[in-house]
């Protein structure tokens, strides 16, 4: 029997998801024995035409990481969808838009301006040149893909079968997913292949979280020495644990929390949470209070809420393109 075929592709991303695959260490050699890799541009020299020449659904599973921002990425996502039985959205950018999705607070023009325009202090661009889709050089014409105004998640462009979350995904989850695909033991289509509980439920600091959490003052991690054992929220430090899916380590301990830094939500929300920002706002509204709740006045609560710097950029750190906001209209 021929081996199943796997493909890997990256869109608007950093390469960390590729490293996360290499972090399978020796296991990657086992995987390589069981499947044929037919496409992986960052690691192997297969070209787009190799993919075009494949039959429909010839690829068993394609793992696509990165957000969608250019014409080339849209085209490749559609082509890979056609050629693959399962499309696996790999990592936070693909699932949620990720860090590149923060660009939806701005638009193409402002991004070009800060990169190539006078807003960039090191720029030397007297003719005010911008990268062009078609440009003429002495020897002929050169092309670039179009840069879109809005960053999208993969499932806003093509149908996705499964999601492996995280920035970057933990290798043990990747391995579990690969084993599930190879053995055919897959859950319902559309599932996120990770535990479906909030990080708080598994947190090593769970016991220090009081029954009824109240924050008197919001602190910034940069300006305090965080207690290495106490719940961050109990210390007044914004931690996305309540609205973030667990699974970033296989022992349950958050990988940022174990070095005394609060969670920023790269695993995205568990399935019960529809919108991270809305849920976090309501979670905070309940816990931000004054010691004497009966006497709390609206403006006192507002004062505390105002202490949260950049709530949108914090709550939607990894998920602005899939949020209810989608983008800021400029």
């Amino acid at each position, binding site marked *: 029997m021929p081996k199943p075929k796997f493909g890997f592709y990256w869109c608007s991303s950093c390469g960390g998801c590729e*490293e996360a695959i290499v972090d399978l*260490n020796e296991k990657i050699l086992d995987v390589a024995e069981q499947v044929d890799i037919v496409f992986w541009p960052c690691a192997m*020299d297969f070209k787009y035409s190799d993919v075009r020449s494949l039959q429909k659904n010839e690829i068993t599973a394609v793992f696509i990481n990165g957000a969608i921002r250019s014409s080339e990425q849209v085209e490749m996502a559609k082509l890979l969808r056609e050629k693959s039985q399962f499309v696996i959205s790999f990592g936070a950018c693909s699932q949620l838009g990720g860090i590149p999705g*923060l660009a939806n607070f701005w638009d193409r023009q402002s991004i070009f301006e800060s*990169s190539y325009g006078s807003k960039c202090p090191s720029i*030397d661009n007297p003719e005010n040149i911008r990268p062009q889709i078609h440009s003429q050089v002495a020897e002929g014409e050169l092309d*670039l893909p179009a840069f879109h105004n809005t960053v999208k998640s993969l499932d806003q462009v093509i149908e996705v079968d499964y999601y492996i979350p995280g920035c970057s995904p933990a290798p043990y989850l990747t391995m579990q997913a690969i084993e599930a695909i190879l053995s055919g033991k897959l859950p319902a289509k559309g599932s996120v292949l990770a535990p479906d509980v909030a990080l708080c439920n598994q947190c090593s600091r769970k016991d220090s979280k009081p029954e009824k959490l109240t924050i008197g003052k919001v602190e910034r991690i940069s300006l305090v*020495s965080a207690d290495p054992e106490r719940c961050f929220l109990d210390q007044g430090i914004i931690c996305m644990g309540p609205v973030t899916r667990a699974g970033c380590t296989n022992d349950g301990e958050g990988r*940022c929390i174990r070095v005394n830094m609060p969670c920023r939500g790269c695993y995205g929300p568990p399935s019960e949470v529809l919108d991270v920002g809305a849920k976090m706002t309501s979670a905070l509204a309940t816990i931000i209070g004054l010691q004497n709740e009966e006497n709390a006045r609206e403006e006192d609560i507002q004062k505390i809420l105002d202490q949260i710097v950049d709530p949108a950029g914090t709550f939607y750190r990894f998920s602005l393109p899939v949020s209810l906001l989608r983008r800021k209209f400029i």
Partner: protein
Amino acid sequence: MSQKISIDPITRLEGHGKIEIFLDDRGNVKNAYLQIPELRGFEQFCVGRPVEEMPRITPRICGVCPMAHHMASTKTIDAVYHVQPTETAVKLRNLVYDAYMLEDHLLHFFFLGGPDFVVTPSAPAAERNILGVIGKVGLETGKKVIDTRRKIRNIITHLSGRVIHPVSGLPGGVSKGLDEEKRQEFLKWARESLEFAKESLGIFNKVVLENQKYVELITGDIYRHQTYYMGLVDENNKVNFYDGKIRVVDPAGVEIAKFSADNYLEYIAEHVEPWSYMKFPFLKKIGWKGFEDGKESGVYRVAPLARLNAADGMATPLAQEEYERMYATLGEKPAHYTLAFHWARLVEVVYAAEHLVQLLQDSSITSPDIRRLPTQTPDEGVGVTEAARGTLIHHYKTDENGIIRAVNLIVATVGNSAAMSMSIAKAARSLIRDGKVDQGILNMVEMAFRSYDPCMACATHHLPGKMPLLIRIHDTDGKIRKIIER
């Protein structure tokens, strides 16, 4: 009739890229372009974020060397808050930074750059990968590569939370310290890595330097460019990855600038071309004179060989010995041979391992004094480190509440953007003659950019399988004239 060769996408580099080679009527190369078809806009979308989040956001620029961005960013927020990290924090930052340089460089040698030499440039593409290297150097060495990578990355995970996108940097220090038990364990690993670093250099000596053909390839003209060089140096002008002054030497090796990162705008400017999303940094005082080498052109180079060229030596004994041996063999300093970046990278591996051992031998690194809290109003700061791929500068401006107002980044790989284009064009010109292009030639064109370590080192050449490259030769009217596939 004019023709164009497209290599699209070029593979095995960090991010997307393509090369366009224009041929004249006789099939000789007129010019070649390295195009980067991607932009994410960090400078813009970081505006509005709290400055302390930058060390957690900017590593997403590059997931292959996230530590470099994390550290440059952390140093920038020290500067923004006008706070000096504690002595212990500086040691711990150096520790994770050396660990990053060590594993990143080693992996480049075995997984990406090395196969061209160890397996040979013209070997069948399917063998020119890590498995081919293991075939040559033995399974034991192959296992050591994976084992060393795992252990060194575990050091980073322990102290920084995660290798891919570390989180421990804070203004004035770090979020986690090191205990005695872990120090002992890591010291053992560091010593093993040093042994392995020496072994790796031994492999390079045996496979590359004892092969006259390779020595001729390295010291020939195909891969040679006389440019300026930039790198961080300590107070003795020795290579430093974490801190120091930025030093620039001219093509003759004469120091023309030595400045603190705060003043980078006096020395570095960036040129824009309509055909790439990547910018082209150059030395401001010399000026942008196009894709040219020589003293009159402001093009400079960064990364391992550039760092060694810009310094007077290495701060650790064994690395210094290897540094001297390299220049004695190459017969010039600065060395202008692009392929010697591979060699310089291994000299830096030895330095990183020696420095790692030194840091871990010092029991004071376990002091709990890992943080100094900021007390001043944040405003503006610049931070610099040497990333594996060159000098990396972050520059932030904030309001009085520490909210980002402006960001500028001079990213390491970008420092070599003009030089990489020039190297590809020169290699193509030298190797493609009268329209004759074959697989070996194409790989040798690719070797011109591979020397600079296009970021995908670690993820590259990992799996067996065919490594095809598709070249389309077009007529001027766009008709495909010939397709070469490997």
